[in-house]
């Protein structure tokens, strides 16, 4: 079953582009990554899902219900954590959490205590006395206290120290194990790689790739670097599948996708001193996507 269904979602702010024809589904129980550089349209998509903004055209549904029409109803089961959290400064943390809980028709006090303990959060302090990282923790507790079925995270880890990030990820994985679906938007690839099973890559308002993380890594370029006894003719590796060929003195490097034997045969014709063949990590894969598609 699809928890989120987005169809040709388009949003223009006046004449400037927000997102164009964004379509993807998030299935029940998965952790879905939503990746793109700043300004690509990640937040726009998420804000449309939460009916904070209204799309120009297209539609989005959560739990099979239209986001705009059934906004208040579906939000009962959504936990949202924005990248920058702002709360009523003069309130105490516990008052804010209770206020947040009062929107859901269930007793959340036990869960608040648990979460505050895990995140090491002092609930007696006033919001405006908190550091950025601690405010973020309030955001995390606030987003999870009603045990939502769908957790939407918009660049969630900024401001958290590595230890807290780890705790937060563990918490997310635990929620996921209990059945929660997670949509994680980020530009930090390592965290996406760690958590997500599938990703959508967005660039300049359009989805440019929708793929399983494992496939992304498999079906991809390998990085070759050669050290040779003599400088190489520039046309030597002019075969199908080779891109980004660079030659500098005795060194040459390129990316290759395709039958590995073809390129190895070519290499054996050379007198080489050393060779490195590496998998691209996700970072490079994405950089590659951005550059290529641009």
């Amino acid at each position, binding site marked *: 079953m699809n928890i989120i269904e987005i169809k040709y979602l388009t949003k223009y702010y006046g004449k400037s582009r927000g997102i164009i024809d964004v379509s993807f589904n998030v299935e029940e129980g998965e952790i879905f990554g939503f990746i793109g550089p700043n300004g690509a349209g990640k937040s726009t998509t998420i804000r449309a899902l939460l009916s904070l903004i209204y799309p120009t055209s297209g539609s989005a549904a959560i739990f099979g219900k239209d986001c705009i029409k059934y906004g*208040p109803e579906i939000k009962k089961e959504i936990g949202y954590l924005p990248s920058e959290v702002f*709360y009523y400064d*003069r309130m105490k943390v516990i008052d804010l959490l209770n206020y947040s809980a009062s929107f859901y028709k269930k007793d959340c006090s036990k869960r608040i205590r648990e979460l505050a303990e895990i995140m090491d959060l002092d609930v007696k302090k006033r919001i405006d006395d908190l550091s950025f990282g601690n405010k973020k923790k309030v955001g995390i507790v606030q987003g999870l206290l009603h045990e939502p079925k769908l957790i939407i995270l918009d660049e969630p880890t900024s401001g958290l120290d590595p230890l807290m990030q780890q705790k937060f990820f563990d918490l997310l994985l635990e929620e996921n194990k209990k059945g929660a679906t997670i949509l994680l938007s980020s530009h930090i690839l390592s965290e996406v790689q760690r958590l997500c099973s599938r990703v959508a890559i967005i660039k300049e308002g359009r989805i440019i790739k929708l793929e399983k993380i494992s496939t992304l890594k498999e079906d991809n370029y390998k990085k070759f670097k050669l050290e040779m006894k003599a400088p190489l003719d520039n046309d030597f590796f002019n075969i199908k599948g080779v891109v980004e060929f660079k030659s500098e003195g005795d060194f040459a490097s390129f990316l290759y996708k395709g039958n590995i034997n073809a390129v190895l045969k070519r290499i054996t014709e050379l007198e080489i001193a050393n060779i490195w063949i590496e998998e691209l990590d996700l970072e490079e894969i994405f950089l590659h996507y951005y550059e290529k598609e641009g």
Partner: protein
Amino acid sequence: MNIFIHELKSYGRTTFIWTASLTAFIIMFMLVYPAFSNDVENTRKLFEGFPEGVRKALGLMLDSFFTLLGFYSYIFMYVTLCGAIQAMHMGTSILSKEVRDKTADFLMTKPVSRKKIMTSKLLAVLCSLAITNIICILIAGVMLEVIKNTGYDVKAFLMISATLFFIQLIFAALGVLVSMMVPAIKSVLSVSLGTVFGFFILNMFDSVIDKEAIRYLTPFKFFDFSYIIKNGSYETPFLIVGVVFVIAAVAASYIIYGKRSIHAV
């Protein structure tokens, strides 16, 4: 209900300060009344020395000024001025502060419709203003009882005092509407002060030129205190204008708020 209580609490301090200031103002000036009324002749001479235009602009009516209710309605004009600022400030800020303080994301990702948010907040404004009014009327009533030297018309007193609430409703509705039409208000206080004083100055100006038509333009002129004292009733056309304006402003605000985009911070 939770939003209503939250708002009521968060405006508690402000409401308290406004109420305390207004009642202090009433108490102070009512205590001055005996000094005026004991020496009518001299005071009248003093005021007669003012040019007529100035007297009219200040709302000084020498025929009624020295009666208890006449004096009360004179100072009450300034109470409504302050009350209008309170109402406009609250009306303007109650929705716009969520955007300014960037808490809109928190509130609007909760399972609650915008209609309900608006209703709860409007009720919180209504309730805060009602509290201010009730306390002001009570204190004013007590003051009148304390300093009266003759009887006075209690109904007229209540009707004059109730105009505070009507004027506040109008300015609160205006404030809400302004906050909906102007997307990002940086300083609520300057907007409210500017608007209220604008209308108040128009009111003074209108007193000087004395044209009936201009009375419709400024809520401060909707209620003529001497008319109320004389006839024991409000003037229906102005009452209708006020009610229609409040309903229209609130309805328009609901529509605009429902369609508004909440942009990322």
